[in-house]
């Protein structure tokens, strides 16, 4: 009898097998990309008004709460009203074209649509006020906003990321009076400090903090 396959055909076959393998890997990768958060991480997000936290916080030294006024009282930190912006910008850079939308909102009642950067799924119930009250600093999750000309997202906001802190809060908490301090860096003895703070702030144990009902309702 004769050989069914010529060696060259064998080579082809091997090539095909390899291709199939690569295709599978590529598919898996694509799936992962497809299921990523809507806003990419560490990429500055364009906004209708190129608002710079670096300028307002870093240079002018505004306190977070001046604009995000409800961060200590409610689940949502609060997006400043246009009026808040105009407290300064009725005087400053009033004729700067980039600020035009700011005044259109009043004259033409055309609201500004900010592009959302930190976005959680609908079934996740995050509450700013309690985190602030328990000594979780802004920069812990939002990064050095005071160094961002255009704001971007530093945290993955995935469940495993949340769990990282909920399983070991002592590694992240800071004294309440430093919560809004952008420049705060965990000290060398963070763990030991953290444990003291966890006790002092009555932060619940890992079991309670990792209950499904803590974040999902």
């Amino acid at each position, binding site marked *: 009898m004769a050989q069914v396959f010529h060696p060259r055909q064998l080579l082809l076959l091997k090539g095909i097998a390899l291709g199939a393998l690569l295709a599978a890997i590529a598919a898996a990768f694509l799936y992962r990309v497809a299921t990523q958060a809507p806003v990419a991480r560490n990429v500055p997000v364009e906004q209708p008004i190129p608002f710079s936290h670096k300028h307002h916080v870093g240079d002018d030294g505004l306190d977070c709460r001046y604009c995000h*006024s409800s961060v200590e*009282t409610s689940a949502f930190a609060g997006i400043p009203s246009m009026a808040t912006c105009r407290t300064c910008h009725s005087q400053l850079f009033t004729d700067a074209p980039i600020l035009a939308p700011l005044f259109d909102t009043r004259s033409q009642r055309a609201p500004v649509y900010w*592009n959302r950067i930190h976005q959680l799924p*609908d079934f*996740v119930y*995050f509450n700013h006020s309690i985190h602030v009250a328990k000594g979780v600093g802004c920069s812990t999750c939002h990064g050095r906003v005071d160094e961002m000309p255009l704001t971007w997202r530093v945290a993955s906001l995935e469940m495993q990321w949340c769990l990282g802190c909920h399983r070991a809060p002592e590694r992240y908490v800071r004294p309440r009076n430093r919560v809004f301090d952008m420049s705060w860096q965990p000290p060398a003895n963070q763990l030991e400090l953290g444990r003291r703070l966890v006790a002092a702030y*009555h932060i619940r144990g890992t079991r309670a903090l990792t209950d*499904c009902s803590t974040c*999902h309702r």
Partner: protein
Amino acid sequence: MSPRQPRREFDFSGVPERSRREFLKLMGASIALASGCSRELPERIVPYEDMPEQLAATKSLYFATALSLDGYGSGVLVESAMGRPIKVEGNPNHPASLGATDVFSQAAVLTLWDPDRSQTVLRQGVLSTWDAFRAALTARRSRFASQGGAGLHILTGSVTSPTLAAQLHRLLDKYPEARWHQYQPINRDNVYAGTRLAFGETREPRYDFTRARTVLSLDADFLRSMPGHVRYARDFNGARRPGETPSANNRLYAIESSPTLTGAKADHCRRLRASQIDRVARALAQRLGIAVESPTSVPIEAGWLDACAFDLLTRHGESLILVGERQPAHVHALAHLANERLGNVGTTVQYTNPVLAEPIDQLDSLRQLSAAMAAGEVQELLILGVNPLYATPADLEFARHLQRVPFSVHLGLYRDETAMRSLWHIPAAHELEAWSDTRAYDGSATIQQPLIAPLYGGRSPHEVLAVLAGEFEQDGHAIVRALWQGELGGDDFEHTWKTSLHNGVVPDSAFTAEQVTARLPALPPLRDADSSELEIVFSPDPHVHDGVYTNNAWLRELPKPLTELTWDNAVLMSPESGRRRGLANEDVVEIEYRGRRVRAPVWLLPGHPDESLTLQFGYGRTAGGRIAPGAGFNAYALQTSAAPSFDGGARVHPLGTRYPLASAQMHNRMEGRDLARMLPLSAVIQRTAQGAQPSKHERKLLYPPFASPTYAWGMSINLDACVGCKACTIACQAENNIPVVGKDQVQRGREMHWIRVDRYFEGSDAHPRVHFQPVPCMHCERAPCEVVCPVEASVHDSEGLNVQVYNRCVGTRFCSNNCPYKVRRFNFLQYSQDVPSLNAQRNPDVTVRMRGVMEKCSYCLQRIAAAKIASEKEGRRIRDGEVVTACQAACPTEAIVFGDLNDPASRVRIAKTSPLDYVLLEELNTLPRTSYLPAVENPHPDLQET
């Protein structure tokens, strides 16, 4: 957070139409996300133009106002989330509520957001504008002036609103020839007539059940349907706490012509045809020493009457006889006289000025109107907030006569039957959208404040009347405020006004008791005692009432008390009467009465008097929204002005066809299982004396328990207090974004209610014992549902809650199979619709579930979480009573108690220490956190119920 953010960012009040639409779109999109828990889409954040002060907190705010039914107001606190009214709670300051609500108040928010509401002015069914209408009306005002308003007729429902009454009176002064007619399908005619018979003047009887030890109800459903019933239910059960003070327990005798919750809760209940109750009343009056000649034959055994009379007499000053609105005036009068003889006047019953501003005989008023229309005397007819083309006795032929009215105006929430046939239709503002005022059963006035600008530019009757009176510039706020300025006057009016708004009650506005002296009325001759003719009894539908709520999906799907029917009405008759005619449930019959015929499906209801039919109003609509028309049958089509409440001489002809009905409970017997317990009072006293038995929970467990170190949430449900009104069910639906599934799904047994109220019949079909049992999730400590869940979607948290994680659920439904209580609900299809206005009603703190996931009672987890966060920010524990579940809040009788079992002083802990406390299916050893207290019957020793 995402579905909530855009709402939080959006200033609702005073935004132009366009942007509110955008807002709704936005929210539509975000809810769509909520239901599709897969990949998130990018979102936008829309900031406020100017931050409203209160809303800056982005927390829910509560506003006190009132919602009215048949004119009678009940105080409520409405939760407003970012300017959207989303939930109604009772107002603790309000005498008619004391913090509780009935099903109608709970459903009000759905009516508010109902996308089917009328949204534009219509002229002959064609789109028009408010200005056009105003112009048209103004054009006719010259004629009013010249002719003193002759030909101008105004038809309203029962009016308790001082402002509206004042406006109408001003108008009548201005145009003396104009006429104001009042007709509410469910009205107080017989009650007022009764007081006129007894006292010579119109009075409003007001009852005090806290002091009543013996109560006799003659066809009066004071637990469920008469004005003030929420308060009455509370008081009645307040005086009935065997666990606490057994000796002070009360005893309820009920005689009813159509099964009601009052009869179901009665210690002794007799079911008679409506016409027979007169006879019983006389026999009883005679036993009470009132000089009426005793009827020859009485349809109740003498022993029963003797026992009842004995209890009434021995409880001198602590007894109470009350008569239902259905019964004729002289029966009321007899009861008033009896109460006086029994020394109850001033203690258990008081008589005040009528709550209705104009306590006329409404049926007569309607007769006059239709006569005037027939005679062509009516030039202009303003119909304010009622639907006479549907909801009036058939023999008055309102629809036909309306054609002779050249200028007819209808103000209503829906494009209903009347709207389609009137010249003009004006969309009405919902009670939560407009300024107005109303009085409660005891006369207390509440100023109704709007929570939101009218969604569809609706108008309140005040505004329409203002136009009619030529007071153009007046808006609702100005009109109402002006009146109260006059009423309250005083230099500190501003303060009184503010407190009235804040508290939801105008200070000292309740009516004071009037002195009365009753006299024996002239009694009409009795009807033939044993006439075997078939009677029909008209009554409002338990949930859609006289038709005002027919388009309210929550109320339509809420299983009706006793029948457990949803979505339709049916002719109720006793199983015996059905058997005689070879009728079974769902058989269609033709009812013939006074030459009119109506076709309707039959439902055989145990405890219904024989040879009597109950016809409930509110169905058989032909217009008024998307879900209102086409269901059930129209009982008004048989109602006549001669006998609007009940009458004999009906006939039923089986048609041999069937009409499927959707009952939420397929099986009505307990099959000897120890589920809803009921004990005689004697047993209760004995058990309480013995004190706590060795706890049932001390038993061998295979595995060590998981501790609940911080809080241990638990619930106790008092079956004795539960009257089966289902306010809990609908409150839960409003709070937890529970979808409506529709009739076909209910027929398949797929209703979604998280807390259902089981209803069991025990004993004979003629005289059944009725048991009610609210069944939410038991939150078992050994939860069978959790072990079988393959993906940890059903798990326990550290506070002992059995939590359902919707976003983790893949929908194997094993948990439901393994739940012995069958309290789990599954989204077999995509039930939660994505309708912008309905999305606006959704509770932002509760995930909207998508198809394919399991859901169930969460003990209002969102409320627990809110309280926890609040308390932790203040560095304290949650106080007892700080977390109130939706069902608990709504319950009129405080049957549901919820709290922390780790707190030895908590009410729930105390309730559970009662020796009567028990759990469902204890033998399964699931250790439920929800437990029950048994119902208690307090029978007269001489009477052995069958």
